[in-house]
């Protein structure tokens, strides 16, 4: 029995016991979700289009926020790795800011940008920017110095050193920084959508609570996890594995 059939069997067993437990114990249906109820809610929501709309608007936000964070994080990471002064001045700040849960930026964002898309974009950017910057910085500073010397002996200019040695050399660490940044950005977005109500999966979650529809609450949670895992495994995972396998750092 391989690991996937084991997992599947265990899952089916747990869900069956859960379903039976809720059905036959007389527990309040508006407090305790059932697997069948959650599945029905997901299917209904997808067919009705509400969840597709919510997923779509969350997707647009995370994509825009992540794109801004990736560009800014790459620039900040290069600056931190390349300049000692920048490292001494901003290094501790970057680590300190990363320790702040990004949702704590929301009150500030609302003061600055009002109840607008820009406020939520700001929270997403702040959530992922520093993970990306630190990933880029670490990838570059951990590069073997010998590779830099190869560039020097071949007479590369400063710019060529960056594009032909530093960035390709640091690519695996940059990718894992991007992956972590994306996942932090996704969490920030969900938190933001919960507090500052507008379209999106976060809002669907909140509506579930307001309607006392425990199945909807759980259904949206499942969707949030599913989308997060999908992007993490499919988009980042595949690229990362390919890059590492090419360099002999992971099995192909």
């Amino acid at each position: 029995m391989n690991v996937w059939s084991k997992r599947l069997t265990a899952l089916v067993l747990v869900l069956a016991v859960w379903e039976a437990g809720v059905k036959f114990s007389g527990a309040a249906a508006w407090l305790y979700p059932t697997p069948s109820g959650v599945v029905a809610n997901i299917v209904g929501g997808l067919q009705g289009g509400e969840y597709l709309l919510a997923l779509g608007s969350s997707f647009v936000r995370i994509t825009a926020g992540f794109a801004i964070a990736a560009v800014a994080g790459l620039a900040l990471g290069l600056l931190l790795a390349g300049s000692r002064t920048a490292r001494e001045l901003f290094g501790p700040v970057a680590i300190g800011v990363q320790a702040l849960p990004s949702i704590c930026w929301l009150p500030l964002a609302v003061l600055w940008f009002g109840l607008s898309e820009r406020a939520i974009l700001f929270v997403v950017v702040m959530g992922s920017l520093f993970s990306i910057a630190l990933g880029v910085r670490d990838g570059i500073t951990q590069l073997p110095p010998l590779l830099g010397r190869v560039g020097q002996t071949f007479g590369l200019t400063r710019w060529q050193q960056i594009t032909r040695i530093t960035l390709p050399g640091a690519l695996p660490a940059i990718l894992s920084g991007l992956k972590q940044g994306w996942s932090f950005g996704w969490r920030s977005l969900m938190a933001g959508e919960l507090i500052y109500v507008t379209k999106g999966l976060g809002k669907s979650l909140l509506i579930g609570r307001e309607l006392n529809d425990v199945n909807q609450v759980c259904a949206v949670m499942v969707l949030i996890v599913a989308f997060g895992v999908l992007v993490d495994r499919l988009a980042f995972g595949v690229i990362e594995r390919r890059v590492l396998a090419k360099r002999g750092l992971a099995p192909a």
Partner: protein
Amino acid sequence: MNVALQTPPVALPKAELPKLSIAGVSKSFGDLAAVTDVSLDIRRGEFLALVGPSGCGKTTILQMLAGFEKPERGQILIDGRPVTGPGPDRLVLFQEPALLPWLNVADNVGFGLPAKPRELREETIHLLLRMVHLEKFAHLMPHQLSGGMKQRAALARALAVDPQVLLMDEPFAALDPQTREILHHELQSLWLGIHKTVVFVTHSVEEAVRLADRIAVMATQPGRIRRVIDVDLPHPRDFNSPEVAEIRAAIRDELREELQKIARKEGNDEYVF
């Protein structure tokens, strides 16, 4: 007997400018004097080996020739002009092959070549791969190669930019004896074909006698050149010939004194060389 033993610096006819000049160079790292007042001229097209025990500053000299380190006193000259930094006229071959792990063998070999014209680039890469017997492995990644193959690829990458000088820092030290033997042979026939100026750092007396036209034997504490020995023997060299034996013995004698000196400082009575 065609073995001439000289003391440095070697006087050259004025008409022939040396390719590289090390002129009264000193360098220290903190309190540690790495090399002190070293002078040596390296002739155009010659294969010079720097031999010595670890800590004699032979790698420091190579780093200064390469332009990675600057001398504290004295000057490094190439064609009579001071060396200001690293550059492709003095290409360095490191002890580790230092291939770029994200490029395949062909792209590593072509690293120093211009991207265009494409046909010329590919033709050059192909030629070089044939020269180092890697043409069948052009599309493999570096991690799929053996140690000897990696070092051959690194050599091809260096030769691609047609450097005037090759600086080799114990490039075969990490290889097994058989592979080293093969690479000695290959380097020899390559060098006989192109006659580049080569400075080769090694701690192996055999390696130096096998490959070099001249051998600078270095001393420790402070690092300096003890003696320069001409190896005026045809290639390939017969290791059982009396001439080779004589040169090896001469180098060993020089080095034995050095090792005894180290041993005395470290307080060991016996130091077997």
